[in-house]
């Protein structure tokens, strides 16, 4: 498969008796923006956690650009070029805004330090719309600004693969427009992204392709328009016999 950056094959993770991710397989091509969607509890976040190394799969393989990353600890995966944001935003409260961004670029896929880190942080803050805010206390940021900050931190390592876990959740309509535009810009830079999202408008307008999960399994994988009109997908969302 030429042009494939990430390949997940038969990844499986169970918690006690509950199989959160049940033999899931999919590919992500270089430069692609893949949407990972599905009803609550379908295993999307667990899937992201498997990719980022937060948890290990019980079986299956995850390969990033030819290197097997399944089973590696999170810091190794990060150094190979996977960066992420968290479902519940996680900023570092006692660090300044600038340091929050540098944190992403010092230990990861690329490593900058000193003046370079300073320049990178300022450029990224500008990029996500926090220009001129480098010195403000992190605790005083609004919710969307915290999300922007987390995004800047993830971008600071110049990741090969960016994982966004419901990055748009909780934003009001006008913030949502800004947020969608921001992701589109990042994607237009050529960045490969997987986004877990519930906001359907964003999925429709942003994604090249979507993978739909339900009860730990993939139930659809393909072009956005086709997948979203698939009866199986609609049933999973609206509650068919097993929802």
């Amino acid at each position: 498969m030429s042009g494939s950056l990430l390949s997940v094959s038969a990844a499986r993770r169970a918690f006690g008796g509950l199989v959160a991710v049940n033999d899931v397989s999919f590919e992500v091509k270089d430069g692609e923006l893949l949407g990972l969607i599905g009803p609550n509890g379908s295993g999307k976040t667990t899937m992201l956690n498997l990719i980022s190394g937060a948890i290990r799969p019980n079986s299956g393989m995850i390969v990033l650009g030819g290197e097997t990353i399944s089973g590696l600890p999170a810091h190794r995966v990060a150094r190979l070029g996977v960066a992420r944001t968290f479902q519940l935003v996680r900023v570092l409260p006692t660090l300044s805004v600038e340091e929050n961004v540098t944190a992403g670029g010092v230990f990861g896929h690329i490593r900058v330090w000193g003046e370079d880190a300073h320049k990178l942080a300022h450029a990224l803050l500008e990029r996500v719309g926090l220009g001129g805010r480098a010195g403000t206390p992190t605790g005083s940021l609004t919710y969307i600004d915290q999300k922007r900050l987390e995004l800047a931190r993830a971008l600071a390592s110049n990741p090969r693969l960016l994982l966004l876990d419901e990055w748009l959740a909780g934003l009001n309509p006008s913030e949502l427009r800004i947020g969608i535009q921001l992701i589109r810009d990042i994607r237009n830079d050529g960045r490969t992204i997987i986004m877990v999202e519930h906001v359907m408008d964003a999925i429709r307008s942003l994604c090249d392709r979507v993978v739909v999960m339900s009860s730990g399994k993939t139930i659809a994988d393909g072009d956005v328009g086709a997948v979203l009109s698939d009866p199986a997908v609609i049933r999973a969302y609206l509650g068919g016999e097993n929802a």
Partner: protein
Amino acid sequence: MRLLSASETRIGVIGALGLASVAMLPLLDQGYTLTLTVNIMLYVVLCTAWALFSGPTHYISLATAAFYGLGTYAVALGIDILPFPLLVLIGALVAGVVAGLVGVATLRLSGVYFVIFTLGLAELIRQVVTWLQSEMGSSLGLYVLTDLREQHLLWMLTGMAALVYVAGWLINRSRLGFAMRIIGNDETVARHVGIDTALAKVVLFIISGTIIGAVGAILAPRYSYITPTGAFNSMISFQVVIMALLGGVHRLWGPLLGVIPFTILFDQVSSRFPNHTSLVVGLAFIAIVYLLPRGVLGFFADLASLRRRFRIVLVEDGKAVP
């Protein structure tokens, strides 16, 4: 890139002057003040080294007595065969190795496990040392007879203090220091930005343990007769925790603010009311948690921000600032 900022230069100069004036003390006094100052410098180094690790990680280490005792014991065992400076180095290395082993075994786990493990570490090493000594048929007590007097100890400790402050400052501005601050904020984030959190913690614990081991070795001549029970005295671990937390662990010089008052208080209590020392230690722990959760340092910071706010209110009311 700038090497030193203006405030760093200022603190550096004040610090150097401070340490230099401490080193001059033996010219003025050879008695009680000197002994008390040696105690203060001893705890300054121990507490600062402790806070290097426990400050950013929030892991409460009670291993101080173990590392300190290892340093003391290295000197006691080798004083007849090897030169003293080499023994200090050996003591430091042994403590560092033990810190590494303990770190690898416990630092992957939660803080509670770490506390419990370090709580008994000194006792464990004491039992093993006692057993080894009796197996090998040597006597338990060892003599350390040297020409080193209180002023020599003071000079060595002053050197260690300079070392620990410079080391702390270098760590703080290094990637390791930055990594520790991120870990202290959110370990999950730390891992996901590529920090090997377990390794970073172990490295820092080794640095801290090595310094404490060296201090234990330096102080060995003071005891002159060394037994396992005397060398591995758990009380040191607790006193170090109290003083460091009392001062505040968020700044390199924070522990200093706790060491000075507590060393003087403890010295007074143990000479006048020797049966009340446990009680004082207990009440000190309780007082810190309820009254000074962020140490003297945090208390002054809060006071300063309170006064700023107070001033703003006064100015807004159009009144003069008192």
